[in-house]
């Protein structure tokens, strides 16, 4: 693992930075999708993998970010770049508000309620609430990226935008893991009762995890809206949430595992297009097999980043 972290990540970043120049435009689009869905899966990992909350509604926040950007751009004429702060904030606020009343629910109940949020969200979009979501067709004809009057229409620009968002997300995840908050989340995932008894305010941390995950997913939504210059409800259906949920658990809630998961789920089907109708049939079997063979995921996450000053008391003290 150490060697992987030392050389694996820089190598991965260099490859991803050079990648779009080696691909034609169709594969560039696939690569952008890969980056966006990786960010969403990582945001899902904050609630599901890192904090152990059964959240099966992440597509809601992804969609909310996409729709925030689309509505601000299309109805109010904001440039896409300017919509980013709100596309992060609005889903994050909704994440906090929605999580508030439900985080105390036991695992499976939480799962169903988050599915419910996702389905209500899609129904709101389809019924065109307030006349701004565009109904079942969604909103199309969004502006392309522009930055201080420099117009970045090319797909390459979207790719690097998505790549930048992925790098930011990875940075946030890395800092989270090293921080007090990250340790609190990890502890409450391992044993909520014990976490509470040593004075961790589990409720606050759970809500925080929801808000953070929602904000990151919202940002990914902006990139998604930019890539297609359109948004529509079916991209944020609850089946998408199921896919993100499965990717995190099959991957093992670690960054390499999630990358593999997203690759298998969204890139392989593009390579084997002739098997499109068999796609989910095969995935279903693969999910069962992966869980039976590796119940903790393909690359199980290790939580080893405990700062040195805490380890002073001796090796046995912490783990």
């Amino acid at each position, binding site marked *: 693992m150490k060697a992987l972290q030392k050389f694996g990540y820089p190598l991965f970043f260099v490859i991803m930075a050079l990648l779009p120049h080696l691909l034609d435009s169709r594969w560039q689009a696939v690569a952008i999708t890969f980056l966006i869905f990786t960010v969403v899966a990582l945001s899902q990992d904050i609630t599901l993998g890192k904090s152990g909350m059964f959240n099966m509604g992440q597509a809601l926040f992804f969609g909310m970010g996409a729709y925030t950007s689309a509505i601000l751009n299309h109805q109010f004429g904001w440039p896409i770049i300017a919509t980013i702060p709100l596309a992060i904030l609005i889903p994050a606020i909704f994440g906090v508000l929605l999580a508030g009343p439900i985080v105390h629910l036991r695992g499976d109940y939480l799962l169903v309620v988050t599915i419910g949020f996702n389905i209500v969200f899609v129904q709101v979009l389809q019924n065109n609430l307030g006349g701004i979501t565009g109904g079942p067709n969604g909103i199309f004809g969004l502006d392309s990226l522009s930055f201080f009057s420099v117009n970045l229409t090319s797909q390459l620009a979207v790719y690097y935008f998505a790549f930048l968002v992925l790098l930011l997300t990875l940075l946030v995840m890395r800092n989270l893991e090293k921080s007090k908050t990250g340790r609190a989340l990890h502890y409450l995932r391992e044993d909520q009762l014990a976490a509470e008894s040593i004075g961790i305010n589990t409720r606050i941390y759970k809500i925080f995890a929801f808000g953070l995950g929602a904000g990151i997913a919202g940002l990914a939504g902006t990139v998604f809206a930019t890539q297609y210059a359109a948004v529509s409800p079916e991209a944020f259906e609850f089946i998408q949430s199921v896919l993100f949920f499965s990717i995190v658990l099959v991957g093992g809630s670690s960054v390499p595992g999630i990358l593999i998961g997203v690759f298998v789920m969204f890139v392989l089907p593009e390579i084997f297009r002739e098997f499109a109708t068999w796609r989910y049939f095969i995935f*279903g079997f693969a*999910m069962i097999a992966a*869980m039976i063979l590796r119940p903790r995921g393909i690359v199980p996450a290790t939580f080893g980043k405990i700062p040195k000053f805490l380890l002073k008391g001796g090796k046995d003290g912490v783990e």
Partner: protein
Amino acid sequence: MDIFLQQLANGLTIGSMFALVALGYTMVYGVMRLINFAHGDMVAASAFVGLTIYTQVMGQATSLGAVIVIFLLTAAVMACIGILLERLAYRPLREAPRLSAVVSALGASLVIQNGIMLIWGPRMRIFPELVPQVYWDLGGVVISLIQVIILALSLVLMIALYLFVEKTRMGAAIRASSIDQDAARLMGINVNSVIALIFIIGSSLGAVGGLFIGLYYRGITFNMGWQYGLYAFIAAILGGIGNIPGAMLGGMLLGLFNAFIAGYVSSTWADAFTFILLILILIVRPTGILGERVAEKV
């Protein structure tokens, strides 16, 4: 008043279908603490299996005897698939972390759903008219023979299941296993056969539910399992998951609620209202209406 009585009749019909399907969820959850996500797709599959038995095996006969045979055969086929599902997808994961079994259930759901699509095609199929179209007009309220059959048969099945679980030795084994599997094993109960039994009962009740859905709505699609399964699952949670009378109560309640929303408000918002009801009930009673308040195991 007419709308009220009409929606009451419709609600009881839909509710009894929800309840039949919800029983499958709740029984599996009660013993295994697992949301069997594949159950909704099993229900969808049974409508298609029933369709094929009707055309291929029964030669499109619609006599009373033939209909009974179609129901029994479909239930038997689905019971076998249920056992197979448990053996292949759930039994290897009984000692694994709980979320692994959830992912396996989601995988099984995808396999069954897309299996239906690969066998019967992606387009909507029309379920045969097994029951004659007879309607009675009771002073402005129209009730069909199908509705009466669905309601009556569901009630009979539910009462039979309730008596089976409460009054027989095997029922006692099911109850014991759902309280504590290890203790049940120590008392000489074969938990593996209890779980197999639960999958047989749950899948056959689901099969009847699936055939009812076909009879009542006529159009069946390969992906309808998510929709009906989710509603039935909500019904199970409303009543208190793991609780058999709770699933029946939850199913009826949800059916009536849906019918009245469709009758008085708007059917385009039915899903949203259903989930708002669920969320409100869970905020007030976190373990459902009849669910006992259990402390999380430490």
